[in-house]
């Protein structure tokens, strides 16, 4: 009995110290964002602001004009999320429930494409979008997010669990295939659609390399690109940069906290079956 108590204590000490280490950078980011200029660079480093101020956040929206970048990020992320859920769920459903000759072979070749680093196509994609006049536009940023192979996998895996009898019953009632998808399948696979939406939202919001490449005008930058650009000239302004980091990362954290249950389950399901 005593050994169980000991093990329990060791486990909890491990867990709590792990949690403190994990949270420390985020806690310091938030604390420093409320400090007065120069305060974060004192010795010993202060862990809490002595007189909390919102001045850094005001500067972000006035002097640095990050509101535009926030709006860019928001619009791009929303569009990418909605469109990609539609495109991806249709494809995932077809791979699970609508057999056709050559389906398994096509699915396998999609799977092998997951090994190809996106960077191989990035340079030609940039040139293609340049020909289409889509460089430095929202559309240019969104396009690569629209059809995700990983998303198609996720939806297919989940949709395999939908009963065929249910779909066939709707067919006998005379429903068309799209109606069956929309009215029978979608309500059942809704949890995985929410997971996919959360996934897409977070990866579009957090993405850096592609927006960096395709957006050339600072007024069009997404928040991460704008922030990476600012840190060069404002490297001394620790507190201001921490406010910018909070502004950039907070929407992602909030979306995660709202959808954490489905998001976490999606990752666990994808990993085990993958």
């Amino acid at each position, binding site marked *: 009995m005593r050994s169980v108590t000991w093990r329990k204590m060791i486990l909890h000490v491990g867990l709590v110290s792990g949690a403190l280490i*994990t949270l*420390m950078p*985020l806690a310091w980011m938030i604390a420093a964002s409320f400090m007065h200029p120069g305060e974060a660079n004192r*010795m010993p480093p202060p862990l809490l602001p002595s007189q909390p101020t919102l001045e850094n956040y005001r500067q972000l929206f006035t002097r640095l004009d990050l509101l535009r970048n926030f709006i860019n990020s928001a619009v791009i992320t929303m569009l990418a999320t909605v469109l990609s859920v539609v495109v991806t769920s249709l494809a995932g459903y077809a791979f699970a429930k609508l057999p*056709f000759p050559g389906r398994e072979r096509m699915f396998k070749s999609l799977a092998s494409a997951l*090994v190809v680093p996106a960077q191989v196509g990035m340079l030609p994609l940039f040139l293609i979008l340049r020909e289409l006049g889509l460089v430095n536009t929202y559309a240019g940023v969104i396009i690569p997010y629209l*059809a995700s192979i990983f998303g198609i996998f996720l939806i297919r895996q989940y949709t395999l669990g939908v009963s065929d009898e249910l779909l066939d019953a709707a067919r006998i009632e005379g429903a068309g295939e*799209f109606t069956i998808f929309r009215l029978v399948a979608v309500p059942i696979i809704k949890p995985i659609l929410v997971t996919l939406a959360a996934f897409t939202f977070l990866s579009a919001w957090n993405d850096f390399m592609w927006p960096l490449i395709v957006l050339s005008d600072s007024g069009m930058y997404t928040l991460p690109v704008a922030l990476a650009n600012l840190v060069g000239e404002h490297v001394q302004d620790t507190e201001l940069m921490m406010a910018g980091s909070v502004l950039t990362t907070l929407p992602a954290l909030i979306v995660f906290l709202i959808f954490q249950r489905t998001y976490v389950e999606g990752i666990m399901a994808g990993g085990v079956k993958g």
Partner: protein
Amino acid sequence: MSSALERRKARAAWVFLAPALLLLTVFFVLPVGAGLLLSLTDFDVYAIASPGAMRFVGLANYAHLLRDATFWHAVGNTLQFVLIGGPLSLAVSLGAAMLVNAKLVRMRGIFRTIYFAPVVTTLVSVAIVWKYLYHPRYGLINWLLHLVGVGPVDWLGDPHWAMPAIILLAVWKNFGYNMLIFVAGLQMIPRELYEAAAIDGAGSGRRFRHITMPGLAPTFLFVSVTTMIGYFQIFAEPYVMTQGGPLGATRSVVLLMYEEGFRWWRMGMASAVAVLLLLITLAGTLVQLRWARRDP
């Protein structure tokens, strides 16, 4: 009757797949193919203005890269990141998974959420945060080291420490993701196995070796392959924290590709870098798959 139904389903399938296949073909398959061709040309800043200025140069870009010290340096840096950061991050993920999955632990959900939080943060934001944490004079990390009598270390300014510093950030940022997958894998192992082993007198070390590790083998393969593929593509961390410096110590293959392609507009050369990255990634994946198959 049934063949009419089959035909109807097949027709619907193609309609449902059309948008995704069209997008993937035009914006993924085609560019990847074009990337292979582009790597055989001298496409540069002049060709952007007038594509007629582009010439076919065969394998000249590859020949140049394979003799180029900068390229090999970038490969070495990337391999350092993959071969040290990858296993380290798997070990931390597995440790965290076993902690949050332990029967005796209360409030597992909260710990799981905390450990996962860095995964959903914006990489650019946290790279900037860590850049300040690593500050040689004011950084929290050097101050903590100072308390135990170590340092100061010029984390991002010293070629020996810059890559380890970036690896540490990456492990912190990523371990929560694989932790979740390990938790799912651990939950698939039947509890009776552990109970039977405990009755037979197997200690926790032996239970880990003979039950946990074999039970996790498929999960392990999945996680190590996906982690490796992801780590080969490291870009934003060095871009934000060090711009590839000091002395090129953190220039990764993708950062080199970015510089060649989008800073100097040598897109033929940059494509060759990307293709070589693809080949390295494929080789790494095959090695892992073969290794896993040989292991009983």
